[in-house]
């Protein structure tokens, strides 16, 4: 493993994705600010915008950093350099993940802060938001896995659509859950066992998806 090559490839991709990453971060922060406006419909619009920005960031970054490299044939150029498949895989999967996590984390962190700063906010909603963001991170990791395995825009979009349908069902489940729905209205932040259990399942899905993504990528025999 050549750590210097990994670092160079990582920074190159981070540089290439700087504008979309920055755009999604700004868009995400604006949508968070909209949720804080003193109107119920503004809060709803801000919430929808936040989810939209996260989903768009995921598919855009996977497309631009991963699928485009195969479609635009820039991978042939990269793999002609003194870079092994392991170096390439570590750099590529890490950078796609980091590029997504920057707006993702920016939104979650700003929401957390605002929940404690804005007087009208109810800090009890934070576990719900963490569950939602982890769910979207899991969906992103599954799209990443699909993109790596199939190298197909079509299949990645299929997984994206399935993820969105599942997200709606997941939100419905959270709203209807007696413990979680109560938490959303609470002035006090607490982490009941059911929240921790769902978080654990989400973390396992994320880790398995990332592990499989890496495993499939480094077992690839033909790179072009």
């Amino acid at each position, binding site marked *: 493993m050549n750590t210097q*090559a990994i670092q*160079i490839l990582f920074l190159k991709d981070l540089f*290439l994705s700087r504008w979309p990453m920055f755009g999604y971060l700004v868009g995400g922060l604006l949508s968070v600010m909209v949720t804080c406006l003193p109107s119920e419909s503004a809060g709803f619009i801000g919430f929808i915008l936040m989810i939209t920005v996260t989903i768009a960031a995921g598919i855009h970054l996977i497309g631009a950093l991963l699928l485009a490299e195969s479609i635009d*044939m820039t991978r042939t*150029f990269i793999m*002609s*350099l003194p*870079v092994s498949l392991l170096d390439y895989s570590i750099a590529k999967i890490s950078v796609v993940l980091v590029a997504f996590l920057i707006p993702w984390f920016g939104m979650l962190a700003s929401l957390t802060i605002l929940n404690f700063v804005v007087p009208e906010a109810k800090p009890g909603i934070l576990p719900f938001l963490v569950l939602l963001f982890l769910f979207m991170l899991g969906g992103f990791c599954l799209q990443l896995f699909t993109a790596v395995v199939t190298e197909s825009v079509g299949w990645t979009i299929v997984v994206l659509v399935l993820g969105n349908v599942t997200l709606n069902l997941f939100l419905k489940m959270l709203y209807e859950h007696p413990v979680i729905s109560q938490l959303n209205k609470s002035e006090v932040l607490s982490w009941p066992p059911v929240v921790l259990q769902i978080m654990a399942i989400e973390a396992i899905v994320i880790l398995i998806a990332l592990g499989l993504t890496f495993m499939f990528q480094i077992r690839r025999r033909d790179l*072009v």
Partner: protein
Amino acid sequence: MSTALHQPHQTTAAASLRGIAKEYKHFRLNNIDLEIEPGTVNGLIGPNGAGKSTIMRIMMGLVAPDQGTVSVLGQPISSREASAKQDIGFFSDDMRLYKSESIAFHMQFVRSLFPSWDEEYAQQLLDRFGLIAQQKVKGLSHGQRVKALLLLILARRPKLLILDEPTNGLDPVAKQEVLSELMQIVNDETRTILYSSHNTQDVEQISDTITFIDRGRVIASNNRDEFLDSWRRFKLQAPQNWQAPSIDGLRPESTFGNLRVMTTDRYQTEVEARLQSSGATLEASEAMTLEEIFVAAVVRGREEKQ
């Protein structure tokens, strides 16, 4: 003939492929043996889809062979190995740079991976190729893109250059600029070039050794001058019932009435005399161009396969 005339042997070859096979759905690369001597220019000629690009990709570790071994610059090659690539410059016709970035961005990126990067030479190449470092890749013409890629390859001073159809689609001026640069590199006897094309004229211009590939097989491989010397075309006037003498390597090419056209890949001066004594009148004994040799070799290879 399924094997290259340059059989692999135990020397420090610039590249060595032994028993390479690769199966795709509609194509099979079949038992490729190839030895590339250091300091030589090797042309790989084949029609589109012959397997030239697959061989080169296997040599770069971009494609894993189903069978056989590959070593380049004394090191085994696979997608898991990167060290040999430090001294290899690979160009492929379908290789692309990042559209939204400039040539300067790519130069800086490649420089960061190659301690051998020669900035002065890179600047000379920019000038010689008429490229502007700040120009974005998406604004480059096909010829400029090829030149930009060659700049990125040549400025790292690789010991081995693997060039897959570098002159494909270039206008005559750009083609000559590229070939001139390659010919300058050829003067450095420590550097080895493997050059593929379906254009025999380009390959003939710079190659020491030439290998013909067709339908995934090596059909002939030889020193360029030996190729040109060993192939010959004969035009004969012969009666309908004329039987061609049994001469090693002599094959009929075409017949127009009494005019018979025959070729040999093992020309010796006594062939003309034997043809004359067989009852035919020899009208012409012509040297063949590399393109004619290539076509004849492909036809022979396909006949032998059938």
